[in-house]
């Protein structure tokens, strides 16, 4: 199956960190910094996750939705594509693309239920309109590969099945970052296994050495994940509110 990813549109669309970290000029005008940009995307990834749990879709659908959302913001400004609408719409589109359709009505119901803040409240027609705009922003590329499949295969191969839960959780957390836009999914999976094995004091050096992968890349990804865990602690609700106020949407 290896040929599959390497010939996919996902692989061709991988970006460098620097390309992902470009704040759209329109957002910059509003004073949005790179930090703010990352923060909003993380916040929206969490939001998509919560919506996904409520409408009961698989983790894979959530992961695809977050990837769509992140891809949108490599091309579009948050001031023009309100993240609070892009998030549920990405989930709506991802559910269709992953063949587990969620009704727009149901989604709108949970959007209301989860958000006392009126700024999050969008109607079905808003979601359907945004669906078309997201499709366009994605240039109609909908197939996304995720680390999950590789993760279970690699864990099995390494005979590390007791790390499944921890490493699976770390993979979920990687969607709070832009890693899926930058690295091939199996390398993300390896980084998560690496962190999990170090954390649980498992000896995996020999196994990693046998894999024909660039361990520097795997270690870099691991470091990024660990850095993220560190910085994540300092984020408060206030900080998020302040950031959103900069966007001054729906005034």
């Amino acid at each position: 199956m290896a040929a599959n990813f390497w010939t996919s549109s996902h692989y061709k669309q991988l970006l460098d960190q620097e390309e992902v970290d470009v704040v759209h000029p329109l957002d910059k005008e509003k004073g949005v910094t790179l930090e703010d940009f990352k923060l909003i995307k993380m916040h929206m990834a969490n939001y998509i996750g919560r919506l996904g749990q409520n409408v009961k879709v698989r983790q894979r659908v959530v992961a695809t939705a977050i990837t769509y959302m992140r891809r949108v913001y490599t091309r579009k400004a948050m001031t023009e594509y309100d993240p609070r609408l892009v998030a549920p719409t990405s989930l709506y589109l991802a559910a269709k693309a992953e063949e587990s359709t969620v009704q727009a009505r149901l989604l709108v119901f949970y959007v209301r239920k989860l958000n006392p803040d009126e700024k999050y409240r969008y109607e079905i027609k808003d979601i359907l309109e945004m669906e078309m705009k997201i499709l366009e922003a994605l240039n109609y590329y909908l197939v996304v590969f995720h680390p999950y499949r590789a993760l279970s295969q690699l864990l099995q191969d390494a005979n590390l099945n007791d790390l499944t839960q921890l490493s699976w959780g770390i993979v979920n957390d990687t969607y709070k970052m832009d890693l899926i836009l930058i690295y091939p999914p199996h390398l993300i999976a390896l980084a998560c296994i690496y962190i999990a094995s170090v954390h649980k004091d498992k000896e995996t050096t020999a196994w990693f050495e046998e894999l024909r992968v660039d361990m520097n890349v795997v270690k870099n990804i691991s470091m990024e994940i660990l850095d993220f865990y560190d910085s994540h602690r300092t984020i408060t609700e206030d900080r998020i509110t302040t950031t959103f106020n900069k966007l001054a949407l729906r005034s």
Partner: protein
Amino acid sequence: MSEVPNVFSKKVADRYLKREVLGEGTYGVVSKAIDTKTGQIVAIKKIRLGKHKEGVNFTALREIKLLKELKDPHIIELIDAFPHKGNLHLVFEFMETDLEAVIRDRNIVLSLADIKSFLQMTLKGLAFCHKKWVLHRDMKPNNLLIGDKGQLKLADFGLARIFGSPDRKFTHQVFARWYRAPELLFGSKQYGPGVDVWAAACIFAELLLRRPFLQGSSDIDQLGKIFAAFGTPKPAQWPDMVYLPDYVEYQFVPAPPLRSLFPMASDDALDLLSKMFTYDPKTRISVQQALEHRYFTSGPLPTEPAKLPRPHPKRESLNTRVSDFNQQEGPTVLSPPRKSRRVMPQRDGFEENAHQVEKSDEHVNDIRQATGERMSWNEHAPMSIDFSVFGSRPPPRPTINSADKSRLKRKLDLEFQQPDQD
């Protein structure tokens, strides 16, 4: 056909100049258009919005998703997509005709080399899909389009799916009935690329015979036709058969010699055909193996695509004039004198057919228990269609129409994982 805009909008007007309506696709109207940027003729599919406020049509989305990944000389190219007035429009390369039109055209003589060429291109397109872990699931001559240089391309990926997880369950209600593999007719939900191979074999046979090979009138009858042609399978031949969900025992009939069914075919052709028509999907030849079969390297060699016979182009121009006339003069003619290809022929017949399919599917288990009444109900169903209109032409092909598809959509097991890399 109710609206007559010649251009889509100011924004896209300078890009695509809309011409006549070509036909009704699975989920929208298809029009011919000119890409004014490149001068290329294209076909634009306008996707109807879902009736139940569900945004972009699910089937259309599936086709977009897969076609964006499948770029191959033997697969229809999705050139572009754009929203306009709330509808999504898909821009495909324009194809002159399709294999069904070629097979049906009595003025065309298909040489053995021509047949080989059509089959080879079909299998090449299919091989690419399977390599990418995509099942087409709706292979039939009508979905094999033919371009101006004779190149054949697979189209209509509205039923296609990514496979790869070995125990993933799918619906068995795929393919037009005449092209359905026996495992599907027995209700298998864990099928693989073999279903496309069986359908390709039916197309191969159709090319040789110049009529659909196994024209079952119901699912039961379809299996009957298959067994009459190849003999009732013995468990030794296909060990998993008896475990399939809708398996029923059929009275044993022996297989007539394959040669008697295809008197014109070469030995190599018969050998390949029998390998593609193998009952057990596990031992059925794969598309890749089929392409490597000596049939394709032994003489006569496949005809160059550009030299393949095609339906007479005069019809085309007549068609154009007819639909132009309709568009300009206002009155909507419900039954144009000659419908262009890709139009679902005999609408009534199809609705009847859909109805029939639905009914027989709903009661599939009852029928399987072989009650004669149900069978006769099925036979009576199409009586409301006046067959005399068709004269000696073959009955309308069963196809999966949009009503079926929306039903399918609901039935489709909605959970699946696509293969990640390993």
